[in-house]
């Protein structure tokens, strides 16, 4: 490397400097291995290299160029400390030059100044970004709540629901298992809506929103095609168990007692309305969505939701309502017990 400061500054004299600039440009657009060893960096440094190379094309010691190099950086970095990449270039070049010549206190000062400038910019950006992040978090967590959830969270749950519905396929089934995998006895969880004064003999299923009024006994329901399935029951808490359900398809019931017009939702309630769920039509019409009257080959026990409950493997357990009293076809998004407590209304798989 030449010791001539003019050549160094020119960018033409010492080839290494030119190459450095090219490599640095590459670093910015497509960082390549080894590029980090090159001290210069910003694309704008190209400009400076071009500028300074101009005088040197004359191939003679040009004091102006040297002077420019020596005086330019300080004011530039002072006047535009956050944006002026030219000064970075200068600092780097200076340090390179000093390497060739041995330690130079002024050059060391330049590196320190440049480091300060970069640090100021970097840490200022980091501080602003951190403050913005914290502010966003504060904003998010203090929004007005809809059914226990800040509205942006609610909105995203609904967005997730739209995404899920867009790829939902009723042909995609939950896996079924051999009888050896059945968990006996099935775990019991919750008795919401199960009024102990309930009289199963007097029970009828009301279907609301069909052509005419529909009141069905358990035998009426059993007249529909019977289906058995050994599927996984997944609680929203995280546990799961494999159980065998016997019942009729909700889709078959709806086909037998259809609504006069297309509807989007099905609501279900216990007779005392102590528990209620809302279902989207896709999930309700899934072939594995059963109105079940038997669990693990035995008629439903009272705690498991006799005489009729929902077995819907495409939803979490919370949607598998026990002791159904009313089924209603509706275009109004039905109320849902747990959705009102901050849970996702859709809660689907």
């Amino acid at each position, binding site marked *: 490397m030449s010791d001539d400061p003019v050549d160094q500054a020119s960018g033409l004299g010492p080839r290494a400097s030119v190459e450095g600039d090219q490599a640095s440009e590459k670093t910015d657009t497509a*960082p390549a291995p080894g590029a980090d060893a090159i001290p210069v960096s910003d694309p704008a440094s190209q400009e400076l290299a071009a500028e300074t190379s101009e005088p040197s094309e004359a191939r003679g010691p040009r004091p102006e160029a040297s002077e420019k190099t020596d005086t330019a950086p300080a004011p530039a970095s002072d006047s535009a400390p956050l944006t002026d990449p030219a000064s970075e270039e200068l600092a780097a070049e200076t340090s390179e030059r000093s390497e060739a010549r041995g330690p130079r206190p002024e050059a060391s000062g330049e590196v320190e100044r440049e480091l300060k400038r970069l640090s100021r910019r970097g840490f200022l950006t980091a501080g602003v*970004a951190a403050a913005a992040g914290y502010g966003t978090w504060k904003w998010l967590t203090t929004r007005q709540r809809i059914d226990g959830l800040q509205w942006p969270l609610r909105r995203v749950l609904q967005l997730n629901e739209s995404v899920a519905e867009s790829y939902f396929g009723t042909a995609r089934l939950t896996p079924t298992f051999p009888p050896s995998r059945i968990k006996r006895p099935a775990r019991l969880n919750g008795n919401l809506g199960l009024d102990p004064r309930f009289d199963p003999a007097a029970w009828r299923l009301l279907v609301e929103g069909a052509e005419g009024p529909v009141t069905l006994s358990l035998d009426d329901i059993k007249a529909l095609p019977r289906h058995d399935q050994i599927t996984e029951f997944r609680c929203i808490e995280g546990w799961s168990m494999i159980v065998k359900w016997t019942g009729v398809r909700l889709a078959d019931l709806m086909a037998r007692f259809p609504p006069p017009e297309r509807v989007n939702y099905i609501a279900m309630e216990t007779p005392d309305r102590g528990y209620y769920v809302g279902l989207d039509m896709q999930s309700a019409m899934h072939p594995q969505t059963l109105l079940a009257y038997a669990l693990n080959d035995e008629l439903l026990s009272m705690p498991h939701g006799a005489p009729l409950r929902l077995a819907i493997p495409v939803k979490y357990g919370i949607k598998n309502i026990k002791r159904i009293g009313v089924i209603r076809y509706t275009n109004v998004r039905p109320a849902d017990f747990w959705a009102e407590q901050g849970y996702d209304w859709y809660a689907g*798989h």
Partner: protein
Amino acid sequence: MKRLVRKHPLAIRWFHWINFPLLALMIWSGTLIYWAYPIYRIGAGSHTLVAMNLSQPAWKTLHVNNRLAEGMAFHFFFMWLFAINGIAYVLYTAISGEWRELVPNRHSFKEAWYTLLHDLHLRKEPSPPRKFNGAQQIAYTLIVLMGLGSLLTGLAIYKPVQFSWLTTMFGGYPTARFFHFWLTAGYVAFFVVHVGQVIKTGWNNFRAMIIGYEVQNSAEAANE
């Protein structure tokens, strides 16, 4: 003689520092979900070394009990940002060529072993002064693969019917949940080691992750 050397591209620094709070939020909301059914443990057979659980008083003191609904809502909110940032990072490293420094090569494993010995004070020679040594290459690639694993096991337990093939691939729903949990534990372990290494390596190295540049002595530079 000191000089400034460009180390971390701007994009990588943004991806890294955006990922940090997002991963923290995913872990935090994930634990709120986990406490609803905290069954995992470290142990063998009937012997449990560490139960991944808290006592009732601890739950209440930390105020993390009965927050399943909230945990799920936050988890299914930030999952998008976490996934998008992670995918963008991988695409960036792939397109920019940065991956060449990050992905381990055939020397990385031997080098990582030496680095480990050095860090344990069993070997004198320090790691080579490259941007990422073998141990770092392995760690930073592994963490990306773990991220992919979290996305996939997460999807497997989020939509176990529509993506039942994925759930089955991970050995079923409970097993997918198991992997999803232990990957998270892996992040926590990574975090502890990572922060420890950053503290040990010092301010110049840490600052480079903020400002992009590192100060190098010419003696070091001569090595390269």
